[in-house]
C-alpha cells in the first residue's frame, strides 16, 4: 500500500530534478526539435506516383509457352486488348464516337502545322518552331517555311520520278523536311548516318538501290559513289551557309549522262512562290511509304531496318503515352536532340514532340557520342534526348570528378527526397548540389532527359541506378531511360518517369512500351519455375518490323516486372 505512493513520489522527484536543470541550452534544443518537427510535417508530400505502381510495372500473361517466360506488357495495354496501333488521329468532320485513324508521318506534320490544342480539343493554334543549333547560336525556322521546302523538294523528286531516296545529312531541318517530303510525295526514305566513308555509303546506296541521294555538299568524294551506283539519277546537295557561293552543279566524272545535280537552297529559292505554304491534300487511306534506318552492327556496314509507316506511328504514339499526362511534351517545351536522328529513338521522340506541338532544336554535331556540355549550349531546352554513351561519358569525365564535399552533401539531401518518391524542387540544396558538377551547363529550364541505350551497345555505356540519381540531382530534371533494339521502332522498354528508386548496380529499363510486348525465350524448363525468368529478349507488337524479332541479348524480368539486361 505504501509502496505505490512512494514510487510516484520518487518519480515526481526525478522529474523535478530533471526540469530543475532546464536552462538556455535546453530551450535551444527544444526549439530545434520543435522546428524540425514542424518542418518534417510541412515538407512531407505524397510521392509523385503510388509506390505500388513502381513495385509492379508491367503485367505478365497468365499463360506461357514451354521454354519461354510469360509475355510482359505495359500497364496501359492489358492482355486481351490490342497494343497501341497508332496516333488515333480524328479527322475534322468525322463523327465524334468513331475511333481515330492510325495516322502516319503526314498527320504528324499536319498536327504540327495545325498548332496546339486547348484542353477541350479546340485549336489554340500555337505552332512550335524548329531551331538548328550551330555552335553557340540557334537559327530559327518557322514551320510554314519548312512546309515550303517540303513541297519544293517533294515536287522536284516526284518530277524526277524517283522511288527510293537516300538521305545522308547531319541533323538539320533539311533532314526533317526530306523525311516529311517522302511521306507527302510518296518516296521511300533511307536515312544513312552521315559519318560513313564514301565506300561504305556507296555500298549502302547499291544495297538499297537508291535512285536519289540528298547529301551535304562536299562531304565526300561523289565520283566514287556515282561510279558504283548507276541507278542513281538525282543528286541533291545541301550547301552550308558558308559554301553557298560555290558551284555545286558539276556532274561528276564517270556518272551516267542523265544524272541530275541540283542544290537545295537554290531549288527552294526558285520555286518557293509556286510551292505554297500548305501541305498537299492527301488521301489518308493511301499508305505512307516506308522509312529505312541503319542499325550499327559489328560489321562496319550495319544492318538496314525497313520500318513501315505503321511501325513508326505506333512507336510515336507509345513514346508519347509512356509519359504521364503532366510530363508529356506540350507547346511550351523545347525539345533538343543531341543524338543522331538516324537512330529511331531520337527521330521518333522528335516526331512525338512535333505531334505535340513542342518546339524542336536540332544540333548538327548530334550523335551517339558527343560532348553533353557543348551540344547543349546555344539553346535552353526543356527536354534533351541523348544516348547512354554521351551521358555516361559526361558523368564519368565531368560530373564525378567535380563532385566536392559540398556537392555531395547537397546530393545526399536531394537523394533523400528522391527516395521518398518526390522530385526535389529547385532550392538551396539543389544549388548546393549543382555547384561543381554542372556549373558549365545552362540548363535552367530542363525538366526531362530522355536517354536511350542500344541493346547491343557496349556495357560500359550502360548507366547504373546511382548515375541516374546523379543526373536527376545535378541537372534537376526527371529521367527516362530506354532500351532500343534493331527492328523495333522507338524503344523496347522505358523506365517510368517517376521511378526515382536508387538500387545497386545497373539500372533496369522499366516496362515495355505500349507498342511492344516482351517474352524471354530460350529458357531452360528445369529452372523456369523458381527465380526470375531469364532468357533471350523477344519483342513483338505493332512497333516491330514484321511483327516480331528476337534480339541477341539476354534479359531478365526482375521482381518489380521491369526488364534488365542479364550481363
Amino acid at each position, binding site marked *: 500500500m505504501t509502496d505505490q505512493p512512494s514510487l510516484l513520489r520518487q518519480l515526481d522527484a526525478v522529474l523535478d530534478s530533471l526540469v530543475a536543470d532546464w536552462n538556455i541550452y*535546453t530551450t535551444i534544443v*527544444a526549439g530545434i*526539435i520543435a522546428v*524540425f518537427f514542424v518542418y518534417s510535417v510541412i515538407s512531407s508530400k505524397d510521392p509523385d506516383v503510388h509506390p505500388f505502381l513502381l*513495385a509492379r510495372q508491367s503485367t*505478365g500473361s497468365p499463360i506461357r509457352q514451354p521454354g519461354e517466360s510469360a509475355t510482359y506488357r505495359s500497364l496501359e495495354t492489358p492482355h486481351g486488348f490490342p497494343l497501341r496501333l497508332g496516333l488515333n488521329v480524328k479527322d475534322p468532320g468525322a463523327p465524334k464516337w468513331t475511333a481515330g485513324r492510325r495516322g502516319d508521318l503526314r498527320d504528324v506534320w499536319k498536327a504540327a502545322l495545325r498548332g496546339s490544342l486547348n484542353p477541350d480539343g479546340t485549336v489554340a493554334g500555337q505552332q512550335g518552331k524548329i531551331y538548328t543549333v550551330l555552335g553557340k547560336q540557334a537559327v530559327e525556322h518557322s514551320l510554314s517555311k519548312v512546309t515550303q521546302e517540303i513541297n519544293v523538294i517533294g515536287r522536284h523528286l516526284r518530277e524526277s520520278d524517283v522511288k527510293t531516296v537516300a538521305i545522308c545529312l547531319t541533323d538539320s531541318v533539311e533532314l526533317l523536311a526530306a523525311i516529311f517530303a517522302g511521306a507527302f510525295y510518296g518516296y521511300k526514305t533511307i536515312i544513312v548516318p552521315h559519318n560513313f566513308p564514301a565506300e561504305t555509303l556507296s555500298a549502302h546506296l547499291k544495297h538499297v538501290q537508291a535512285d536519289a541521294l540528298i547529301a551535304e555538299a562536299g562531304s565526300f568524294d561523289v565520283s566514287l559513289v556515282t561510279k558504283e551506283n548507276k541507278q542513281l539519277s538525282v543528286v541533291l546537295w545541301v550547301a552550308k551557309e558558308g559554301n553557298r557561293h560555290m558551284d555545286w552543279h558539276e556532274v561528276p566524272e564517270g556518272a551516267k549522262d542523265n544524272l541530275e545535280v541540283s542544290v537545295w537552297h537554290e531549288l527552294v529559292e526558285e520555286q518557293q512562290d509556286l510551292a505554297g505554304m500548305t501541305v498537299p491534300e492527301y488521301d489518308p487511306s493511301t499508305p505512307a511509304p516506308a522509312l529505312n534506318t541503319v542499325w550499327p552492327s559489328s560489321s562496319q556496314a550495319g544492318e538496314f531496318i525497313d520500318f513501315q509507316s505503321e511501325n513508326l506511328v505506333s512507336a510515336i504514339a507509345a513514346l508519347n503515352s509512356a509519359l504521364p499526362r503532366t510530363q508529356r511534351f506540350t507547346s511550351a517545351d523545347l525539345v533538343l536532340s543531341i543524338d543522331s536522328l538516324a537512330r529511331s529513338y531520337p527521330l521518333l521522340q522528335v516526331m512525338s514532340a512535333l505531334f505535340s506541338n513542342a518546339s524542336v532544336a536540332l544540333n548538327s554535331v548530334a550523335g551517339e557520342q558527343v560532348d553533353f556540355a557543348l551540344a547543349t549550349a546555344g539553346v535552353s531546352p526543356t527536354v534533351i534526348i541523348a544516348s547512354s554513351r554521351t551521358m555516361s561519358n559526361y558523368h564519368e569525365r565531368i560530373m564525378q570528378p567535380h563532385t566536392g564535399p559540398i556537392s555531395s552533401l547537397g546530393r545526399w539531401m536531394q537523394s533523400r527526397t528522391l*527516395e521518398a518518391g518526390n522530385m526535389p524542387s529547385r532550392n538551396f540544396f539543389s544549388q548546393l548540389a549543382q555547384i561543381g558538377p554542372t556549373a558549365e551547363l545552362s540548363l535552367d529550364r530542363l525538366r526531362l532527359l530522355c536517354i536511350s541505350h542500344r541493346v547491343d551497345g557496349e556495357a560500359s555505356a550502360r548507366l547504373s541506378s546511382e548515375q541516374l540519381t546523379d543526373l536527376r540531382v545535378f541537372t534537376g530534371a526527371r529521367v527516362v531511360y530506354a532500351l532500343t533494339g534493331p527492328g523495333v521502332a522507338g524503344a523496347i522498354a522505358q523506365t517510368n518517369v517517376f521511378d526515382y528508386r536508387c538500387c545497386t548496380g545497373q539500372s533496369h529499363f522499366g516496362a515495355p512500351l505500349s507498342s511492344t510486348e516482351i517474352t524471354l525465350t530460350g529458357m531452360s524448363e528445369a529452372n523456369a519455375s523458381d527465380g526470375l525468368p531469364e532468357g533471350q529478349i523477344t519483342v513483338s507488337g505493332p512497333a516491330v518490323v514484321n511483327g516480331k524479332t528476337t534480339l541477341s541479348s539476354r534479359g531478365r524480368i526482375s*521482381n518489380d516486372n521491369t526488364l534488365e539486361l542479364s550481363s
Partner: protein
Amino acid sequence: MPQAEVMSIASPINLILASLFVVLLYWHFRPKPPVVLPRGPEPIVFRTYIPKTLIEFNGQGDRPVFLAVRGRVFDVTPGKNFYGPGGPYENFAGRDASRGLAHQSFDEEMLTKDLSAPLDDLKDLDADQLENLQSWEERFSEKYLVVGKLVAEGDPEAPAS
C-alpha cells in the same frame, strides 16, 4: 552558493532532449526500402494434350476443369459449378466438347467414346450448328484462358508419353 550551479549543457534533461533529436533525425532520414509487392501467381505452361491426358482434368477432387473446343483446351475451373462434377455440363469435363456444344446437347452420346480415336472432325454439322459452336467458342475465349491444345493420340505433335 547559487553561482556554483553553472548552466550545464550536459545536464540530464539536455542529454535526453539531444538524443530525442538524434532519434528524430534518424527517423526522418533513415533509408527506407522501396515497396515490394509479392510476386503474382506463376503463369500456367501451355501444353499439348491428347484425349487420354485431358480426361484427368475433370474436376474430381481438387483438380482443375478443362474442356476442349475444336482443338483448343480451355481452363473452365472458374465455372466449376457448371462444368465440374455435379454441374449441368459435367459430361464435358476433361473431354472434347465440340460436338455437344454444336448440338446444344449435354448428353454422353455427344462425346467420342474411344479416347485413342482421331479427333471428331465435325464434318457432318450443318450451318446452324457450326454457328452455334462458333458462338460458344467466342464466349469461352472471352471468359476463360486457353491453356493448351488437343491433338489425337499418335499425332506428330502429341507429346511422347
